[in-house]
């Protein structure tokens, strides 16, 4: 089997035993990128020279007798919202075109320390705002299942890179579903860890109370290995949780749901959901029951208000966070002709450097935080957030995990929702409650929708710091499906 089809765990083992060199593994993936990325556009920046140098360093350390971690020498595609020294970091925006950060994000540093080989930076919706990657200033990424469809977003470059076999692993960030939704629509695994379980230091901020780095992989164990590699307490992030990383790798290996209590959230489903998605979801629930889980229906009444609350809270935080793009210290500067004031230059630069969705969200947030509207909008949304947390708390009194479809529909055609913000926002209907409450959730493939033959994701939600339960249930579902299907779902994707 060619190197690009192998799992990250297999590649790590091959490199560690020196049956294959990390350089060979990196080169195989660079070749694949050269072959298919013209069609997919998953990467904004590929640095072959640096990737090969990183791989060579791993090979040399192994040759010197060192024992390295399980992912040493395994390639990773890194979302272009994490700062990286020696590589550009754009956040998918013109305002940061060509910017080379002077420091590494904690996630970047930990990838390097684990010996992972960073192939390059992946495309995203500008500043991670969107569900399709169409909001990138550098053109849309395409879904490897159907190149006329979206790969999800905002981490669409990362989902496409892994599903197109350009990398076995990638990083993402999830603010309202930006890891789980792209994973679902490309037929791979994506995990949003507990908020504070992975560091935001060096992650270009969109909504600081929601942003969470997490892994993408083609199977649950690989996702757990990457999760473990870059997570854990970081003194440089004041909202980082000072607790050990939950035992995610052990849980992924355990892959057993016998005796677990699984709750089906009553409020997800019905109008706006594609029948093929609901059919695959129901099958997944039946599967869990057949594997020995005890399935019950659970009500979370406030979840219906999660989407409106999110589209007040996230834009409010965005309007504040993006104030730092002021054309003074880094990034684009427009109109500085010696006659204009700093404020005029700022306004001209931001108008030229930000795309429409970013402008919409900055203005929406500015509106929601304005005197006179604050209590009715932002203040009320924060109260709804409390109620959503309480709904989760009550549900987790009764069950160990909650399940739902990850997305209401499969991947939609590029262009279909591009200028219809409200339609676009609906893509995150099922993923947003978890962001508001800060708990953990994973998306794993659960089949293809009958209408369009496109992947459907099963979302498994667990309490704060019980990330291992997501992996345990995800791995059990994956194992059962792979034996039923005779291989991973992704093996049914058309060849590029």
């Amino acid at each position: 089997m060619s190197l690009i089809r192998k799992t990250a765990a297999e590649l790590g083992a091959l490199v560690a035993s020196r049956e294959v060199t990390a350089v060979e593994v990196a080169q195989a993936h660079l070749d694949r990128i050269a072959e298919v990325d013209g069609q997919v556009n998953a990467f904004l920046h590929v640095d072959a020279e640096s990737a090969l140098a990183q791989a060579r360093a791993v090979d040399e350390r192994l040759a010197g007798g060192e024992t390295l971690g399980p992912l040493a020498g395994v390639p990773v595609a890194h979302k272009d919202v994490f700062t990286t020294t020696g590589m550009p970091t754009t956040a998918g925006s013109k305002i940061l075109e060509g910017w080379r950060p002077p420091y590494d994000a904690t996630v970047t540093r930990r990838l390097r320390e684990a010996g992972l080989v960073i192939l390059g930076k992946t495309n995203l919706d500008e500043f991670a705002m969107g569900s399709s990657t169409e909001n990138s200033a550098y053109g849309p990424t395409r879904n490897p299942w159907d190149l006329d469809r979206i790969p999800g977003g905002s981490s669409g470059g990362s989902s496409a890179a892994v599903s197109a076999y350009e990398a076995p692993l990638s990083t993402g960030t999830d603010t309202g579903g930006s890891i789980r939704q792209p994973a679902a629509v490309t037929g791979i695994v994506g995990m949003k860890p507990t908020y504070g379980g992975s560091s935001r230091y060096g992650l270009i901020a969109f909504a600081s109370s929601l942003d969470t780095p997490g892994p993408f992989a083609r199977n649950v164990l690989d996702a757990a290995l990457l999760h473990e590699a870059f997570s854990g307490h970081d003194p440089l992030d004041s909202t980082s949780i000072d607790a050990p990383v939950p035992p995610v790798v052990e849980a992924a290996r355990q892959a057993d749901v016998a005796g677990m209590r699984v709750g089906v959230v009553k409020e997800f489903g019905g109008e706006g959901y594609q029948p093929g998605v609901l059919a695959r979801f129901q099958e997944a629930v039946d599967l869990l029951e057949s594997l020995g889980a005890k399935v019950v229906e659970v009500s979370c009444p406030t979840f219906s208000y999660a989407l409106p609350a999110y589209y007040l809270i996230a834009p409010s935080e965005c309007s504040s966070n993006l104030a730092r793009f002021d054309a003074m210290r880094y990034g684009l500067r427009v109109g500085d002709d010696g006659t204009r004031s700093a404020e005029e230059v700022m306004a001209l630069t931001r108008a030229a450097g930000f795309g429409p969705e970013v402008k919409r969200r900055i203005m929406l947030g500015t509106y929601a935080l304005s005197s006179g509207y604050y209590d009715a909008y932002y203040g009320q949304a924060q109260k709804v957030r409390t109620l959503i947390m309480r709904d989760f708390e009550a549900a987790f009194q009764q069950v160990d995990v909650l399940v739902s479809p990850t997305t209401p529909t499969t991947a939609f055609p590029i262009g279909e929702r591009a200028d219809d913000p409200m339609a676009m926002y609906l893509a995150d209907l099922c993923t947003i409650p978890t962001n508001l409450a800060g708990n953990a959730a994973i998306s794993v493939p659960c089949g293809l929708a009958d209408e369009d033959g496109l992947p459907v994701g099963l979302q498994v939600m667990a309490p704060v710091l019980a990330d291992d339960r997501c992996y345990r249930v995800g791995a059990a579902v994956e194992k059962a499906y792979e034996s039923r299907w005779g291989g991973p779902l992704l093996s049914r994707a058309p060849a590029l």
Partner: protein
Amino acid sequence: MSAITRDEVAHLARLSRLALADDELDHFAAQLDQIVGAVARVAEVAADDIPPSSHALPLTNVFRPDDVRPGLSPEGALSGAPAVEDDRFRVPRILGEEE
């Protein structure tokens, strides 16, 4: 009733330091009006006695030890600057002529 008028968008754009073109104002007014109409649904939730949550974690006043550690070098800090003069950020004028 329209919640967000064109004038309101112009005001928001000024507050947001966005020099929007005229056609953008019209386009955004219609879209923001639709979005605000949809998110206003949060008002339907009876939450008078519910405390607001700004955050998912109950964290306050997180400190790390006040250890001296290396920061960015002047070259690093200035490496992305649009304009530099004498190891400093060069910026457009901040005060008006008469100030």
